[in-house]
C-alpha cells in the first residue's frame, strides 16, 4: 500500500511499566507504519496500552515506563536510540503532540500568545515580529480570532482550548501530529466540528496523523486506516472502511456489536462478556481467548501471529488457512 518511505515506522515496540510486583508489559510487540499525509486511527478500551504506545512513539515516556524492545523510525531515523539532545531537533519541529486535556496541558498563568512564543523560541530563535506573524497564522488556521492570543486559557471555551492546543502543535508545520483523544472532553457538536477541522487542516497542510481514541465511531469517517488494540497488542489493522464493514477479529466484531446506532433498525446488542485482562498476568495464548465467543483449543496455549487477509491484518487463529 505504501509506495514512498513511511513517515513513521514502528517495529516490534514493547513498553514495560516497572512495578513492585514485576514488569507489566503495557505495549507488546506493536508494529505499524504511517505514510506521508495518512490518518491512522488507533482504537481500544482503557488500559489497552494505546496512550502508552503513543507516548512511546513521541519519546515522552517517563519512569516507571520504559521501552523494552523494538524501534520507532521517524523519517528513517531510529528515535529510540536518540538522546535528549538529538530529540530536541526533531521534536515539535518535525512531529508534535496534542494531549487529551487542554486544561491540564496549557499553563493557566500564561496567555495563549505567550505560550506559543515559548514554544517557538524553544526550538527556533525568531524576531518578535516573526513570532507574532506565525502565532496569528496558526490561530487563524484553527479558526480562532488572533485577538485571543492575549487571552488566558480559562477565558476560552473547551473547544477553543483544544483548538489552541492544535495551533501550538502546528507552529512548525510538522510532518506528523500525534493526538491522544483530543476531543474526548468535548460535547458531541463541538467534537464533530473539531474533527472536521482536523481533517481539513490535514488536507491543507499535509501532515500525517496518529489519532488515539476509545470511541471507534468517532474515527469511522476520518481515518484512512484503523488499528484495533487489545491488552497491549494490535489485534487487527486495515483500511477503516473495511474494518467497519467487515471486521475480522472477534474482538473487533464484539466492539462493533457494542455501540448502538441512531439510525437503522433497532436491534438487541450483546457487547462482550467479561472485562479486559490484568496485564500483570495476561492470559496465555491469545489474550482475548477468555472473552472470545469463537475460542478454539489452540487459542489457550498458542499466541496467534498476524494472518494476512485482503486489506487487513488479523491476529487470530480463525484466519489460519
Amino acid at each position, binding site marked *: 500500500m505504501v509506495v514512498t518511505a513511511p513517515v513513521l515506522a514502528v517495529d516490534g515496540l514493547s513498553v514495560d511499566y516497572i512495578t513492585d510486583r514485576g514488569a507489566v508489559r503495557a505495549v507488546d510487540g506493536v508494529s505499524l507504519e504511517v505514510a506521508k499525509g495518512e490518518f491512522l486511527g488507533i482504537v481500544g*478500551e482503557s488500559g489497552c496500552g494505546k496512550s502508552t504506545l503513543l507516548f512511546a512513539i513521541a519519546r515522552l515516556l517517563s519512569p516507571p515506563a520504559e521501552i523494552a524492545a523494538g524501534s520507532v523510525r521517524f523519517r528513517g531515523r531510529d528515535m529510540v536510540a536518540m538522546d535528549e539532545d538529538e530529540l530536541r531537533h526533531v521534536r515539535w519541529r518535525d512531529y508534535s503532540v496534542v494531549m487529551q486535556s487542554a486544561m491540564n496541558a496549557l499553563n493557566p498563568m500564561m496567555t495563549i500568545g505567550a505560550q506559543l512564543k515559548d514554544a517557538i523560541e524553544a526550538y527556533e530563535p525568531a524576531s518578535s515580529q516573526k513570532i507574532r506573524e506565525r502565532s496569528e497564522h496558526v490561530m487563524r488556521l484553527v479558526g480562532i480570532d488572533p485577538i485571543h492570543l492575549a487571552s488566558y486559557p480559562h477565558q476560552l471555551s473547551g473547544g477553543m482550548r483544544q483548538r489552541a492546543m492544535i495551533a501550538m502543535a502546528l507552529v512548525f508545520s510538522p510532518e506528523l501530529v500525534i493526538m491522544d483523544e483530543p476531543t474526548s472532553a468535548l460535547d*458531541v457538536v*463541538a467534537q*464533530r466540528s473539531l474533527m472536521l477541522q482536523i481533517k481539513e487542516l490535514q488536507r491543507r497542510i499535509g501532515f500525517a496523523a496518529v489519532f488515539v481514541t*476509545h470511541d471507534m465511531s468517532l474515527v469511522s*469517517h476520518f481515518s484512512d486506516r484503523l488499528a484495533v488494540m487489545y491488552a497491549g497488542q494490535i489485534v487487527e489493522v486495515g483500511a477503516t472502511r473495511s474494518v467497519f464493514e467487515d471486521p475480522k477479529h472477534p474482538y473487533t466484531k464484539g466492539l462493533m456489536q*457494542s455501540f*448502538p*446506532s441512531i439510525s437503522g433498525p433497532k436491534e438487541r446488542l450483546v457487547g462482550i462478556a467479561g472485562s479486559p485482562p490484568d496485564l500483570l498476568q495476561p492470559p496465555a495464548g491469545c489474550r482475548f481467548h477468555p472473552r472470545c465467543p469463537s475460542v478454539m483449543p489452540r487459542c489457550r496455549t498458542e499466541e496467534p501471529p498476524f494472518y494476512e487477509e485482503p486489506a487487513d491484518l488479523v491476529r487470530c487463529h480463525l484466519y489460519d488457512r
Partner: protein
Amino acid sequence: MNADSAPLLETAGLTKHFRLGGYLSNRILHAVDDVDLAIGEQEIVALVGESGSGKSTIARLIARVYRPTGGEIYFRGRPLSAMRSRSEQLAYRGRVPMIFQDPYGSLSPVYRVSHGVLRALKLHRPALSKAARDEVAAQLFESVGLTPGSDFLDKYPYQLSGGQRQRVGFAQALASNTELILADEPVSMLDVSVRIGLLNLMATLRREMRVSFLYITHDIASARYVADRLIVMYAGHIAESGPTEDVLAHPKHPYTQLLLSAVPDPRAPISLPATSSVAEPPRVVDPGEGCRFRQRCPYAIEECALVTPRLRLLRPAHTAACHVATSDIGVPAKEQAATSR
C-alpha cells in the same frame, strides 16, 4: 406512558438558579428553567443534552439534593415540598434512589461491596433479620448479574471491574422499595465493550423489577437503545420531548437536528458537511427573554429574540419549544417526511 394513568413522577415549572460569585454578586446562573416533565410507571425516560444543559441538576432536584428555586415535583401526585417528616422523606429517598457516574468513586474501598446494599436494607426494610438481609442482598446481586450473589457479597471494590462495580450500584439502588431510579450517566465511565451489558440490565430491571428509570446521558444512541421517551435539554430548557423513535425520525427543534447530525455513526454513509458549527452551548447567566438557541440557530427570526418559545405539540405526544418548527398534526403522513427536517 399511558395517557389515562397518572404519572409516577411529575415536575411542574421546575426551576433552579445558582448565585455566582460572592455574597455581593447578583449574577444568577439559570441551571434549570421552567421544566415540566413526567415519568410513567415502568417507563424509561432519557434526558439528553450537552454538559451544562441542566440535566444533572434535574436529577439532583428530584433526588432532593437541591431545593428548587421555583416549581414543584410531584411523586404519585403528592408534592415533595409537603413531605416534612423524616420518615416520609426517608421513604421517598428509598423509592427514588440514584446511581452515579463514577463506579470507582461511588464505592468506599474499605467496605465490602455488599455494605451499601445491607445498609439500605437495614434502613428501608427494618423488619428483616440479619440472615434475611444477607439472603436478600445475595438475590439482589444475582438480579443485577453478579452471580453467584453470595460470592460477591464479601468482595472488596478493588476485586471488581468497573462494570461489576456499576452493577453493585444498581443493586444498591434496588435495595429499598424502589420505584424510580435516577441514573446519571451510569455507563459513560465504562469501557465500550461492557456498556451495552448495563443498558440491557436497565431494560431487564424495568421488566422484571417493575421500576422506572430517568436515564441521563449525552449519548443519544444509547438513549435510543433503552428509552421509551426522549427529552432533549438545551441551556436549562426542554427543547424537545416525545417518543424516542419519533423524535429521532422527525426532529422538530433545530438544536435536536444539530445534535443528531453531530453524532458519529459508522453505519451511516460518509457525509461531511461543508460547514462546521463552531459555537458551543452558552452558560446561562442572567438570560433575558428569548430562545436560548437563537445565536446558533440557522432559522432564527425576529420573534426568537423577543419571546421565549414554549413547548408546543407538533406531532402526537411530541412537543418542541421553537417558534419556527411546523406542526405535523393533521398533515398527511406522506408530506410529513418532507417537512420534518
